[in-house]
């Protein structure tokens, strides 16, 4: 799992500092997975488990965008929590990682949606 996550980020991210590989990629990947699953589960099984009011394409898109925003902010928060001089929360390396993570959040949310939707009582046909 660790190696998989590192390889996914290293495919598009070439930072100057080794701290990304040592201490950022793995927690970032785990946070991406957990955040995406959490938002998708809330959408498909809480919002649309007992109600039939939040199952429009626009509601799903809102969740997708929210997930992308979380994915974009996660690297900044993780880097900032580490402190130190090896990486800056607003360096170009971090910002590129933000874009990459946001893109992965986008794709992962779509994949999770396609799987989870079939179990949803009122959103099994959202977004398609």
């Amino acid at each position, binding site marked *: 799992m660790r190696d998989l996550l590192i390889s996914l980020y290293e495919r598009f991210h070439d930072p100057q500092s080794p701290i990304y590989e040592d201490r950022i990629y793995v927690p970032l990947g785990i946070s991406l997975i957990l955040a995406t699953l959490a938002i998708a589960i809330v959408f498909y099984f809480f919002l649309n488990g007992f109600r*039939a009011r939040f199952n429009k394409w626009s509601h799903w898109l809102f969740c997708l965008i929210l997930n992308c925003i979380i994915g974009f902010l996660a690297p900044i928060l993780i880097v900032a929590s580490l402190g130190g001089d090896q990486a800056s929360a607003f360096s170009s390396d971090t910002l590129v990682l933000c874009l990459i993570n946001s893109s992965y959040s986008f794709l992962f949310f779509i994949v999770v949606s396609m799987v989870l939707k079939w179990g949803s009582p009122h959103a099994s046909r959202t977004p398609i």
Partner: protein
Amino acid sequence: MRLFLFGIGGTGGRVMEALTFLLASGVKLVDAHKQPVEVIPILLDTDKSNKDTLDGASALELYQRLHSKCQSAGKCGFFSTPIGPLASLAKEANQRISKAFQLNFQGVEHSTFGDFIGFNQIEDFATKKLLEALYSQDNLNERLTGGFLGNPNVGSVVLSGFQESADFKLFASAFVPGDRVFIIGSIFGGTGAAGMPWLLKALRSETSNTGAAGAIREAAIGALMVLPYFKLQEDESSRIDSNVFITKTKAALSYYSSHVHGFNSVYYISDTALASYANHESGAQQSNDAHVVELLGALAILQFAGLSDADCLPPAETYHEYAIDVDAQILDFSTIGRDSAAIFAKQLTQLQMLAMLDSGHFRHATHQVWAKVNQFDDTFFNSGDYHDGLSRFLTEYYSVWIRQLAGNRRAFAPFRTLEDLRDMSGMRADRHSKKKPFWKRHLSSEAFDIQANNIARAKGLPSDPMGRFLTLWWDVTSDVYDESFDRF
């Protein structure tokens, strides 16, 4: 069993229309063994442009079209009772037989009464003088296009021509033992008062040998006789005067008691003349608002169909009257009579739910699971079957009818008009919907979507899209009703 329903004149048309809506709502028309009954409506009115009769015929035609999309006869559901025109019984095509539900009088309606009886060709002086004593010059010169204008002495002669028509011969040949006949008409106007005794006489005639005349003579024949329940505004230019409705009714009843025997089951209904309609003799302007008397009169047909043979075959002769529970100016399900409410309150509420959702919800719900699974998308809602079929039936016929019932006097207003379908808990006038626990939705458009999403995934539905739609929404509205209201 088939039930041949003769609706005579405007009142016959309006009662037939009320029956159409009851059957559309899913009220079952069954015989004594709970088997489904096929209805063959026949509208008799020489006033071809009478709007009441035309509306009745149009509603029937739409009903028939929607029924053809539904599940097979006998199953619960909207439009489930089979209704077909007389022409559907013909083995061969015949241009002289009416294709629609309104009978074709084959040119009679364009003649004057004098032409019809050949008055000018009569050479015998005594006969001519007798006819002049029986009929005024106005009677003789009047075109039959506008019906009989409150003159049963004209109608009883003209309607006799029906016996020679292709339609009557088809009816007589298609009739089989076990079939029944029910006649609906008013007895204070012209067409109905003339038609009822004449039709009975034609059916029971010992000399007739057309088709299954023997079976018809021995068949159960019922009748709904509608006594006055409205007035007409006074108009000196009109030949119809509602001040003599009661007098004409008394004369008709007196005549029937002495000379008309042969009905096995007679239903009477009337009301104090509260409503006052515009005085239009005939034609497209004769369009009286729907009245609760017509709706309750239609219940007589259900009751008659469900009688056992012992209770309605000759020589049985029973008489029935109707009484409401509370003498209120505005009736609803709680005051109309518990037994009657038990027959149709749930089903009519379901139809009302369907109409409300059609006008304000379905087209905004194409993203719901129930819509996507069944491909009820914009194309479906704009299709001929839906837009020009079901939606037209609900908006141009049913909704107008229920609104007229509520606006008439005496009124029948079982439902409230709601602007916002997000809260439908007050849709019934007699009671609010049941309170639900916090995790369940109160009665609203969303509650219907929730139920429909659950059902759409679980059950198999018919293959035809409109059949699927009606079956799904019959089940949904039934379940939502049971969760929201107690049964009578």
